[in-house]
């Protein structure tokens, strides 16, 4: 059955696939036990939410702590501005996600499953609750839906747990991680919806689907979600997205917590979490942003740094003040032209802020900026005054 893609089956434009069609195509929910956890470890599947944590390890750590009290959080917050993959999956293949969630609930002996979906993603919430209604009474009893605030850090696993526990979506200090003490203090698995869909397929076909969902954004003719084989190169993905209307100068691989790669180098990069990690990169949430040659790189980077600074939950000084100072320095360079002191400050602050936050928000933002400073070194060092143009 070569149709082992997540988005296989009828045309996506026809909306959510019902339970009958889902079972006809993929069969009933397979059994789940310790063997599934070992299978996941062997498959090498890593999380698709952004942190790319090996799924086998994560399940083992929750299983070790859970004695029938675990909680499964299905993370569909998708706070990354350009990412659309989770929403597409929730609105077209909801049962694949629910299968993954109930497999996790069985394998980890969970007593509760929480669908954590972006509060502004109405279609996704509606599709998931409709699909839930089609499940068995026993499955439905386990599940409740919680709305995730539409902020960048709301998708962070400790923020999700904090919102579910205390109604505030701000990250909390780890340790303890949510694996040890999460929802209601119970061991909690926070897993991205795409990861759970992959798990539902792996439980059926015994191996990874070999595909990933990516969101093509920026200078491509047909931006949007693609499901590609993990060997596909960025250039091929751009072609699948209708090609680039004008030559590109660089590609942002991995979204706002990803890294900038000069276009020609990026074109040959494989869209594959493991392969990218070998290059010191990350596929992150799967956003591939193409920056056209006509756009000013410094102004683009400045806009994103300002966004990331504003998305700091202001709980930690180095992150809140550090990212704001970095964004201010970028803004000065963008609007008034390069001042060598600002370049020095950017380098120093970036290295000082990294690793000094309560969560990984500052780390992601700094990696993004440092890759920009490297890839656009020329632009940053000789940038003229640009009055702030469109976002």
């Amino acid at each position: 059955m070569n149709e082992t893609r997540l988005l296989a089956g009828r045309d996506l434009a026809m909306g959510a696939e019902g339970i009958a069609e889902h079972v006809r195509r993929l069969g009933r929910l397979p059994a789940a036990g310790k063997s599934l956890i070992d299978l996941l470890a062997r498959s090498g599947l890593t999380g698709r939410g952004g942190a790319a944590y090996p799924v086998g390890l994560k399940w083992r750590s929750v299983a070790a702590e859970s004695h029938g009290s675990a909680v499964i959080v299905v993370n569909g917050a998708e706070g990354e501005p350009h990412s659309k993959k989770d929403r597409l999956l929730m609105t077209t293949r909801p049962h694949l996600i629910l299968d993954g969630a109930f497999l996790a609930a069985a394998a980890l002996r969970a007593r509760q499953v929480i669908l954590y979906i972006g509060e502004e993603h109405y279609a996704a919430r509606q599709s998931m609750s409709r699909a839930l209604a089609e499940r068995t009474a026993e499955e439905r009893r386990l599940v409740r839906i919680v709305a995730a605030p539409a902020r960048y850090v709301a998708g962070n696993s400790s923020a999700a747990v904090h919102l579910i526990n205390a109604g505030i979506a701000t990250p909390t200090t780890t340790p303890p991680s949510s694996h040890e003490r999460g929802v209601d203090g119970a061991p909690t698995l926070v897993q991205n919806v795409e990861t759970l869909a992959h798990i539902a397929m792996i439980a059926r076909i015994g191996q990874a689907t070999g595909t990933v969902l990516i969101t093509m954004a920026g200078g491509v003719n047909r931006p949007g979600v693609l499901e590609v084989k993990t060997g596909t190169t960025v250039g091929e993905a751009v072609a699948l997205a209708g090609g680039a209307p004008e030559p590109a100068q660089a590609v942002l691989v991995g979204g706002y917590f990803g890294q900038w790669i000069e276009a020609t180098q990026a074109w040959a990069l494989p869209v594959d979490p493991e392969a990218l990690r070998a290059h010191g990169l990350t596929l992150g949430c799967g956003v591939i942003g193409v920056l056209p040659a006509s756009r000013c790189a410094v102004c683009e980077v400045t806009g994103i740094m300002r966004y990331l600074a504003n998305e700091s939950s202001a709980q930690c000084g180095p992150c809140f003040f550090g990212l704001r100072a970095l964004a201010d320095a970028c803004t000065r360079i963008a609007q008034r032209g390069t001042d060598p002191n600002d370049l020095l400050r950017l380098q120093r602050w970036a290295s000082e802020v990294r690793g000094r936050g309560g969560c990984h928000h500052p780390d992601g933002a700094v990696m993004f900026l440092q890759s920009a400073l490297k890839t656009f070194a020329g632009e940053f060092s000789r940038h003229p005054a640009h009055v702030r143009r469109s976002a």
Partner: protein
Amino acid sequence: MTKRFELRVDRIKCDGRGLCAEILPERIRLDDWGYPIIAEGPIPDHLLPLAQRVVEDCPVLALGLRRVESRTRSSR
């Protein structure tokens, strides 16, 4: 197995009072906004008393000494 400790800070609790850098400048300095930058690695033995004092004197108890197991002499 030598018992070594390293200073850890709870970034969310820390509100940049700066006492730690004043008491233990050998291991802690402040960034431009007054928040501690802690040197990596285990605390040298002769600084452990001061490190203990820093942990106790932190106005918001954001600092802690965490044991670092270093089995072999050439620990990391």
